[in-house]
C-alpha cells in the first residue's frame, strides 16, 4: 500500500512539473497572478512571490538554451 502511494506521489509530481514546464510563460504568469490575488490573505499566500518568480523563469522544455543568451520567455518586447 505504502509503495503504491509513494509511486502515485512520484507520478503526480512528475505530471505537475511537466505540465508547468510545458505551459507557455504568459499562462503561467496569469496563473501565478491569480494565485497571488486569491490567496493574498491566506497562509499559502506567502508562496505567491516564489510562484511568480518560477513562472517568469525560462522553461518551455527547451532547456533554457544558453546559445544567444537565456531565452527571454515571459518578457515581451514592445
Amino acid at each position, binding site marked *: 500500500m505504502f*509503495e*503504491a502511494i*509513494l*509511486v502515485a506521489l*512520484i*507520478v503526480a509530481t*512528475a*505530471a505537475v*512539473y*511537466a505540465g508547468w*514546464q*510545458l505551459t*507557455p510563460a504568459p499562462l503561467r504568469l496569469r496563473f501565478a497572478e491569480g494565485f497571488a490575488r486569491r490567496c493574498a490573505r491566506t497562509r499559502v499566500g506567502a508562496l505567491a512571490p516564489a510562484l511568480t*518568480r518560477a513562472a*517568469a*523563469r525560462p522553461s*518551455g*522544455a*527547451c*532547456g*533554457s*538554451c*544558453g*546559445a*544567444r*543568451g*537565456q*531565452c*527571454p520567455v515571459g518578457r*515581451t*518586447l*514592445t
Partner: protein
Amino acid sequence: MSATQAALEPDDGRRIALLGNPNCGKTALFNLLTGSRQKVANYAGVTVERKEGIATSPAGTRYRVLDLPGAYSLNADSADEAVTRDVIFGQLAGEQVPEVLVCVTDATNLRLNLRLVLEVRRLGIPMLLALNMSDLAKRRGIEIDTARLSQLLGVPVVATVGVHRGGADPLLAALDAMPRTIPGPPARWHAPTLEEITETHRQVREILLQSVREPAIDTRWDERIDAVVMHPIAGLAILAAVLFLMFQAVFAWAEAPMGWIESAVGWLGQVVSGAMAEGLLRSLIVDGIIAGVGGVLVFLPQIVILFAFILALEDSGYLPRAAFLLDRFMGKVGLSGRSFIPLLSSFACAIPGIMATRVISNWRDRLSTILIAPLMTCSARLPVYALLIGAFIPQREVAAFFNLQGLVLFALYLAGIVGAVVVAFVLKRTVGRGMHHPLMMELPTWRLPNLRNLALGLLERVKIFLRRVGGIILALMIILWALSTFPAPPAGATGAAIDYSFAGMLGHAIQPLFAPIGFGWEICIALIPGMAAREVAVGALGTVYSLQGGDDEVASQLGTLIGAQWSLATALSLLAWYVFAPQCLATLAVVKRETQSWRYPLIMAGYLFAMAYLASFLTYQIAVALGAG
C-alpha cells in the same frame, strides 16, 4: 539565484548599459562584470536581446548592468538594433534611461567604433568609453593615448580586456569615480543626415590623428588565410571538409566515453533490480527512470564533441567567412545573407535561431528564415540519429578513411539543409521576397580559440543537457512509465502487459496512420513525448521495450534490441521522419511569439509534417522494394 534573476529586484544599484558596435566584446565584458555565462562568439550579432546582471565594484558599489545588442548607429534598422535604441531612450516597457552608458569599443578598430561613440555622446547621458581588447591592440603595436582621447571626447576612457580575469577592474574603478546623477531624458535625437555623417567621419579622423598611433597594419596572415578559405571553390571544399570531420569525430571519438556511460547505466539497473523486491517502485526506477533517462544520457559525449567543434569554429572567426562564402548561393534561393547566423544557431536549437532572425530587417526574409530554421538539425535530434545509426549502420571504413556511420550522419544533416533550400526556394516563388540585401558584415581577425571561452561554452552545454535529462526528460519518462503500466492487464491476458496499458492502446490506435511509413506501435508511442523534447523519443523507446519484457540492461542495449526487432526500412524511415518532423512545442510557441500570430506556427507544423510523412513514405517504400523490409 542567477545574476539575471537577481537583477530583477527594483533598486539594485546604479543602472549602466553596455553598448557598442557588433563584435566588440560587450558580452565578454558583461560576463566578466556580472559572473554570467552568456554566449560570446567571434562574430557579429550574437546578442539579440538586452540582458541584465549585477556587478559589484571593489569599493562595494552595486551596478545593474545591461548588455545590449550591437549597433552601428542609433538609427535602428532591425529588431535587435531597435532594442538597443529603445533601452537608451527609456522606451522599453518598465525600463528607465540608464544612469551611465558604457560605450564599448574594439580598441583595434577605433576608426569604425568611434562613429557610434560620437552619436551617443550627443544624447547628453553620462557616458564612459571602454577600449576593449586593449591587450590585442597593444600586441599589434597600436598606441592609444587614453588621456588625450578622454580630453578630446570629453568622457572618461579606460582600457579593458573582456576575456581576462581582472580585465574589467579599470572600468569598475572609473564607474565608482563618476558622480551619481539622476538621469534626465536624453537629448532629442534624429536620424543623421548625410552632412552629419560626413562631419562625424571627419571628427573621427581628427580624434584618431591626435590620440592614436597605429603601425602599418600587418594583415598578411589574415589575408593569406582568407584568400584560401574564402575562395569560391577551395573555400567550399574546406567548409565541406570541416563539417565532414566534425561528423566523423562525433562517432569516432565518442565511442569510448559512451561505452563507459552505457556500462554504468547497465550496472546501476542490475544493482537496483538486485537490491529491491519486485513491485511497482522497482519497475518505476528500473524500467521508467533508468531505462528511459539512461538511454538519453549515453549520448552526452557526442553532444559535447559536436559543440566543441561549433564553439571552436565560432571563436576562431571562421563562421562569418563561411557566411560570406554562402551568401551568393543563399541569395539565389531567396534568403538574405543575414540568414546564415540564425540558421547556424539552429543547429544547436531552433529557438535561439528563430530569435536571432531579429537581425534581419526585411520581414519577408525574416519570415522565410523562421520557417526553415527547424530544418537545421538541432542537437536534440542527435541522440535519435545516433541510436538508429548505431543499431543499423555497420561500423566500417569507407575508402580506407571515412567512417560509414559518420558519413550517414553527415548525409542526414545535409538532407535537412537541402530540405531548407528547397523550402526557401518555394517560399521565394510563392510568398515573394523583399529587395536583395547583400550581406554586410565585419570580418573578425583570425585567432586561436580561447580555451576559457571554449571550456565555459562546453560546460554550459553539458549543464543544459543534464538539466533537460534531470528535469523535463525525467518527468516525461515517469509519466510515460505510468501510462505504459496502467491499467494492469485483465486476468487471463496473454499479451505483454504494456499492450493493455493506456500508452499501448494509444500506440495501437494511431499505428494505422503510420503503417504506410513502416512505424510499429512502439514507435508511435515514442513520437508523442518526442513532441515535448525530441530526445525523449529515445528514452521512451527504452521504457517501452523494457516494459515489454526486456531485461534490466535495456538502457544500455537499446540499440542492439531495436536492431534485432526493426527492419532496416523502418529505421531509415524513422531517420527520414526526424530530418523533417514537426518541431517541439517550444519552437512552435517561439514562432508564435516572434511572428505575433498563430498562422505561421500552424503553417510550419503543417508543412513539416507533410514533408516528414512524404520523406518517410518514399524512404520506406523504396527500401522495402529493394528488399530491406
